[in-house]
């Protein structure tokens, strides 16, 4: 299989608070191999400048619902990577 035949998916990721500061933006558009999971998105984020601040297993949400790292992600999903919560 050649690289060009490998399908990819473009995903928009929202970042907040400390993570947004570290990665320099509160929204990033990433291209990952398909089929993709939340874990592959996190791995790519951690390889970017500033991404080392992310833990291996950060809190995440897909389409406003708490999600596990093995959750599949598709184009159009709203992915959010959440720093430790501090409400209240």
């Amino acid at each position: 299989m050649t690289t060009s035949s490998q399908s990819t998916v473009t995903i928009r990721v929202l970042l907040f608070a400390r993570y947004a500061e570290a990665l320099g933006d509160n929204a990033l558009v990433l291209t990952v191999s398909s089929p993709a999971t939340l874990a592959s998105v996190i791995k790519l984020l951690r390889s970017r400048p500033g991404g080392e601040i992310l833990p291996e297993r950060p809190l995440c949400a897909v389409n406003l619902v708490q999600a596990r790292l093995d959750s599949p992600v598709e184009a159009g999903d709203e992915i959010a990577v959440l720093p430790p919560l501090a409400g209240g």
Partner: protein
Amino acid sequence: MSFLRDEPLDLSRLIVSVSAPERGAVACFVGTVRDHHEGKSVIRLEYSAYRPMAEVECDRIVAEARSRWDADVALEHRTGVLEIGEAAVAIAAAAPHRGAAFAACRYVIEEVKRRVPIWKREHYADGTIGWVEPSQARRPPVGQTAGDASLGPVDSTSQDDWAV
């Protein structure tokens, strides 16, 4: 109706909204901005949120409390810049009797801390600014159920805390 508010919270309005002739008990909780954190003097706080998810999660928490204790519950959380002493979160829970009212109120604040995507940044008297992260010391041992209101403060840090 919106759970996140940019303007000062009004507890009396929340109390009125949950009061009813058959509910003889109203329990309230107000979390206010403290002037210190881990030995540093705090002059103000800044709350930010993942608003759409925070609204959905607050709605779920309130619905859970209502059905579990046959209570009516009102909840609001501030966003933006808050001065010392200002209310950051306000909860009113009304039930026929005090046990259910207290339990519902406690459940809501603990679940807000555990599940609602809100962050705070402290401005210190020495001019520095820092994101507040839950202290490891206050977190329960692994394996305890975070939904148990008797546990006290529970904040979510990683995947393992949500157990989704």
